């Protein structure tokens, strides 16, 4: 064996003394070492580099052959041998995480290596995950650069005191934390929520351990007891007090930690700090599960209390296993090995089954040994101490035994676990090479927006897409602001935030000011208040008009008093007899207008104006037709009531064309080079060719004056969306002068009256009928109108169903896909709508509150995903559909135990995708093969299912064009 304690492997600034290191842990998958210390930082090191550096400087001790008791004095490599703060070799220190506000007491990697959890004196539990790429400089202002990028997720606050220990469940799904507030709290890693608080100890809880089989959680406390909690109902299974009854607890013998540990096979639990007064010996009892944790073997050998016990994750055997054997046999039994650390500044190793120490390491450090960690290979042990040292120990197979190969180990564990009543490990063995190949693929570090990481990054740091203001919206925004009544500093929209240079700067060029969008207001007391710009990842603002206007939903919903609010500010109802229904446009084809006729409550809106008028009567208005620096503008000005309104199209002050319109113009829209449209107060729509101003069609009659009008260019076509005051939504294809569709949106806006109300009653209250208004109107890629209402809900009109489909709402607050801000890099329409809906609900306080609960969250997430997938189809967004399909498959694959019918859902979606045919022009089978199956194979549980469908798909491939067999 050799010992290696480099001077640079420590905490604390270089040059100054090293700070106590309270915890170490080694990642099972990935081989990183994490250390946590009093300097409030966590450092992540590369084990490989450590071992390499160590083997160059071996301070090896004579390796006596086992099994005779070996006492090794380690002083040579111990305290004070080298001055602390030597240079760290390149690449050894991977990252420094300084997110705790107090000393960090414990760090633990999750068994799958994905997360790191830490608990500190600030009563907060933090979890971290690694993202691809190099870390940015440690923090703003520090000069450190991290090799790896570890992101800190949501801080978990629920404990009322320092957190002493953290333990993960073997499926990496949950973990628990022990604290000096006498409680243990169990958390869910994915949802970052507390699940249960275990109260039962009467003293500071200083150690916690999760049974690898998953049935129990054990915790040890200063109240001289170990409590075993059942994981299914979280009640106390057993309280063990006997060996600890005489434990010494006065000041000079107070143990920092009481870190107990289960053996990897689950058959033993080693606890700490037991004392036998009679013989005045400190011992660590190891309880056997077979005996119901009553019988215990005591490890005697330390002069001071044992503080930490850690089993090696591997099994060993005296003789090396040849490739063929599958099991341990009598003449080559497999055994576990446990390491104990103590206040007497040393450690000891024991082989299960023997009550004599295998190795005793004296004098390792200048202070208590507080934590131990084994490497995944079974030959490396790392210890840390309050004197600030971290020591690496490498063993020889000849000393410790040969590590049993994985397959044999799995067999042994399976047997044992079954005998203990646990289901065999949740991760079965890979049964075929396909599975293994897919798993290896997944093990590569996720690049920042991978499907799985997306889920986590969303929760922690939603980053919105940058939206630059467009002059088009100016009129509406100005209106909105005035309605507020509060004095607002004008946002310099068009010019961007250029500073007002008083004198030209003499030498160096100043940094060009960036276009930051922020709003300012004044609060009581005269102080300024700024609403900042939420940040994106540098995604460019999309330039097509469609998403621009919808991109502004983010802003629109953020402003109070959004345009088109449900307040009807025009009291007069305009009883206009309808001369031409929207379906009868100049001999065009229509696509029905069924809804209005059928619904009695809505009929009273027909021909009546309930939505506010598009613009105030009188005055002039203008609109830009493009987003050039010098835009082409459409302007309407009325020159008094007797004269007709002038419509002018100009660019940079130069008039391009002009027209005189008989009635005040309320709405303008246009696109340079294509069309310009104006809608007038007398309910007519005029269309011109934008370049010349040539009238393109006779004035088109509308049922009521306009409320909202916008022009979109989708798929090369020019589509005009016009919403009239009676909430009829008309979509015209201008090039062909055709009506794409005309629908009544009134049912979406009115109050849902009781079925028992009679017509008369509802007619009286018709002015209060509107419960929400239209905020934004747009067109989807499938040329269907989309409406975003003032409460954030979004609807798209589906032609085939001839109804409005709700694609964004705030009804799934517990879902993990419920976001307030679209995720980084995601510029899709669906996400923006979803985020807009959620944000509006939040601002208005109307959203449902998340109620927590693991089961509810799981169910809601899955159903939300189903809705999202359907919404993506309705909006025609293939990428979003694929994205959510992958998330859905992944989610079902990992949590179908919690959701009823999860297995059935999985099977059904696979069967549906097996059929030949397309969804959104993508062959279904391609979706199955490329999206769903890889997502499912992340979990071994479903390998049968994956295999089954892979075979079916292959069959389809080979038999291709002719045979159309139905999936079994």
């Amino acid at each position, binding site marked *: 064996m050799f010992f290696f304690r480099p001077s640079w492997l420590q905490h604390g600034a270089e040059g100054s003394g090293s700070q106590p290191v309270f915890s170490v842990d080694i990642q099972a998958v990935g081989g990183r070492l994490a250390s946590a210390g009093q300097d409030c930082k966590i450092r992540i090191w590369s084990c490989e580099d450590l071992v390499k550096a160590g083997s160059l400087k071996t301070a090896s001790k004579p390796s006596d052959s086992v099994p005779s008791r070996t006492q090794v004095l380690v002083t040579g490599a111990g305290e004070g041998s080298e001055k602390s703060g030597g240079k760290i070799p390149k690449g050894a220190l991977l990252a420094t995480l300084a997110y705790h*506000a107090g000393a960090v007491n414990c760090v633990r990697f999750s068994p799958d290596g994905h997360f790191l959890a830490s608990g500190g004196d600030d009563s907060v539990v933090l979890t971290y995950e690694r993202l691809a790429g190099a870390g940015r400089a440690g923090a703003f202002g520090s000069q450190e650069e991290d090799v790896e990028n570890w992101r800190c997720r949501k801080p978990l606050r629920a404990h009322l005191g320092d957190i002493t220990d953290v333990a993960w469940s073997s499926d990496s799904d949950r973990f628990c934390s022990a604290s000096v507030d006498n409680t243990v709290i169990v958390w869910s890693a994915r949802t970052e929520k507390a699940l249960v608080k275990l109260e039962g100890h009467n003293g500071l809880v200083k150690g916690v351990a999760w049974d690898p089989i998953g049935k129990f959680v054990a915790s040890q406390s200063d109240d001289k007891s170990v409590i075993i909690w059942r994981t299914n109902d979280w009640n106390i299974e057993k309280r063990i007090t006997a060996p600890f009854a005489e434990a010494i607890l006065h000041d000079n013998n107070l143990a920092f930690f009481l870190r107990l540990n289960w053996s990897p096979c689950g058959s033993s639990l080693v606890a700490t700090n037991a004392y036998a007064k009679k013989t005045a010996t400190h011992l660590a009892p190891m309880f056997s599960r077979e005996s119901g944790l009553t019988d215990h073997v005591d490890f005697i050998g330390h002069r001071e209390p044992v503080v930490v016990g850690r089993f090696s994750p591997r099994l060993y055997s005296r003789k090396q296993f040849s490739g063929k054997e599958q099991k341990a046999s009598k003449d080559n039994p497999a055994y576990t090995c446990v390491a104990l650390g103590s206040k007497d500044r040393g450690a000891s190793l024991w082989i299960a089954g023997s009550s004599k120490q295998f190795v005793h390491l004296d004098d390792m450090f200048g202070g208590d040994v507080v934590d131990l960690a084994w490497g995944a290979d079974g030959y490396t042990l790392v210890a840390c101490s309050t004197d600030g040292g971290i020591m690496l120990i490498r063993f020889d197979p000849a000393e410790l035994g040969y590590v049993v190969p994985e397959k044999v180990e799995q067999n042994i564990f399976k047997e044992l676990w079954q005998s203990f009543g646990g289901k065999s490990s949740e991760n079965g063995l890979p049964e075929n090479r396909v599975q293994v190949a897919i798993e290896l693929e997944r093990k590569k570090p996720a690049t920042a927006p991978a499907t799985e990481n997306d889920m986590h990054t969303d929760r922690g740091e939603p980053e919105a897409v940058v939206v630059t203001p467009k002059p088009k919206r100016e009129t509406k925004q100005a209106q909105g602001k005035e309605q507020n009544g509060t004095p607002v500093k004008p946002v310099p929209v068009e010019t961007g935030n250029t500073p007002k240079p008083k004198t030209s700067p003499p030498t*160096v060029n100043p940094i060009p000011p960036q276009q930051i969008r922020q709003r300012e207001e004044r609060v009581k007391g005269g102080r300024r208040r700024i609403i900042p710009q939420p940040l994106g990842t540098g995604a460019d603002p999309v330039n097509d008009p469609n998403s621009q206007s919808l991109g502004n939903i983010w802003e629109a919903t953020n402003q109070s008093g959004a345009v088109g609010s449900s307040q009807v500010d025009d009291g007069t109802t305009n009883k206009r007899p309808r001369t031409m229904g929207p379906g009868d446009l100049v001999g065009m084809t229509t696509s029905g207008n069924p809804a209005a006729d059928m619904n009695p409550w809505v009929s009273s809106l027909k021909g009546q104006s309930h939505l506010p008028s598009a613009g105030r009567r009188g005055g002039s208005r203008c609109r830009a037709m493009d987003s050039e620096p010098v835009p082409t503008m459409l302007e309407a000005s009325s020159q008094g009531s007797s004269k007709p309104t002038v419509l002018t199209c100009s660019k940079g002050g130069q008039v391009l064309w002009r027209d005189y319109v008989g009635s005040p113009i309320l709405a303008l829209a246009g696109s340079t080079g294509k069309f310009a449209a104006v809608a007038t107060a007398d309910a007519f729509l005029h269309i011109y060719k934008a370049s010349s101003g040539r009238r393109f069609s006779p004035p088109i009659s509308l049922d009521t004056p306009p409320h909202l009008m916008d022009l979109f260019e989708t798929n090369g076509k020019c589509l005009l969306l016009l919403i009239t005051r009676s909430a009829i939504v008309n979509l015209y294809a201008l090039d062909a002068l055709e009506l794409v569709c005309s629908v009544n949106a009134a049912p979406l806006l009115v109050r849902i009256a009781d079925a028992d109300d009679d017509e008369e009653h509802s007619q009286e209250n018709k002015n209060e009928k509107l419960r929400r208004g239209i905020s934004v109107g747009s067109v989807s890629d499938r040329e269907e109108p989309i409406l975003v209402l003032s409460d954030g809900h979004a609807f798209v009109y589906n032609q085939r169903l001839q109804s409005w489909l709700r694609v964004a709402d705030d009804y799934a607050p517990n879902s993990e896909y419920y976001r307030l801000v679209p995720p980084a890099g995601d510029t899709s329409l669906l996400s923006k709508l979803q985020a807009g809906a959620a944000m509006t609900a939040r601002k208005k306080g109307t959203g449902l509150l998340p109620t927590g609960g693991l089961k509810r969250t799981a169910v809601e997430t899955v159903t939300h995903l189903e809705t999202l997938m359907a919404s993506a189809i309705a909006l025609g967004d293939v990428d979003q559909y694929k994205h959510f399909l992958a998330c859905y498959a992944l989610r079902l694959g990992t949590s179908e135990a919690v959701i009823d019918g999860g297995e059935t859902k999985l099977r059904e979606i696979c069967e549906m995708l097996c059929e030949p045919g397309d969804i959104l022009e993508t062959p279904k089978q391609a979706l199955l093969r490329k999206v769903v199956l890889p997502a499912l194979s992340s979990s071994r549980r479903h390998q049968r299912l994956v295999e089954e469908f892979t075979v079916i798909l292959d069959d389809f491939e080979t038999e291709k064009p002719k045979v159309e067999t139905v999936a079994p």
Partner: protein
Amino acid sequence: MSAVDVFNVQVLDNPAPFTNTLQFEITYEVRETLTQDIEWKVTYVGSAEDQAHDQELDCVLLPADTPGRFKFVLEVDPPEPKLIPSQDLVGVTIILLTCSYREREFLRVGYYVNNEYTDSELQENPPATPVIDKIVRNIVGDQPRVTKFRHKFDFGDPNEELSVDRQAEIQAERDTLTEEARKRNTANAAV
């Protein structure tokens, strides 16, 4: 665990004449939502010798009710030269950008500022009464001195008195900065 953390600060319009507004583009991160606004303040240390000459240039409130990263530009009026002792007007001094919650500071970013004449003649023979219009201000924006103070934000006893230790901590931090500034001033003067 700080609920609000600064991610980046960029000094805009720099170097600039002394009479120009000061502009900082600040990117901050809200890890945990707070019930009240956070307050950003810019202070100009008029004289490294005397704390009494500190000028609070402005103070703005920002919301912290949504988790995520946010960016904004903080533009404040330049310091009033009359309040600065004339011998300290030209030379090295400090600008402090601080962020507080519930009246208590949790973040402080200090910058060294170099005020000097561009005109070489004035540089050689600085007049007794400084000519404000010719002074150019150069904030050393790439070497910020960031200090974070412990703060309970919304998670502790809000009435907890600022402990003596904390006050000493803040004062000590300030003293180091001013000490440095003084040293630099004397170094420059010697040149």
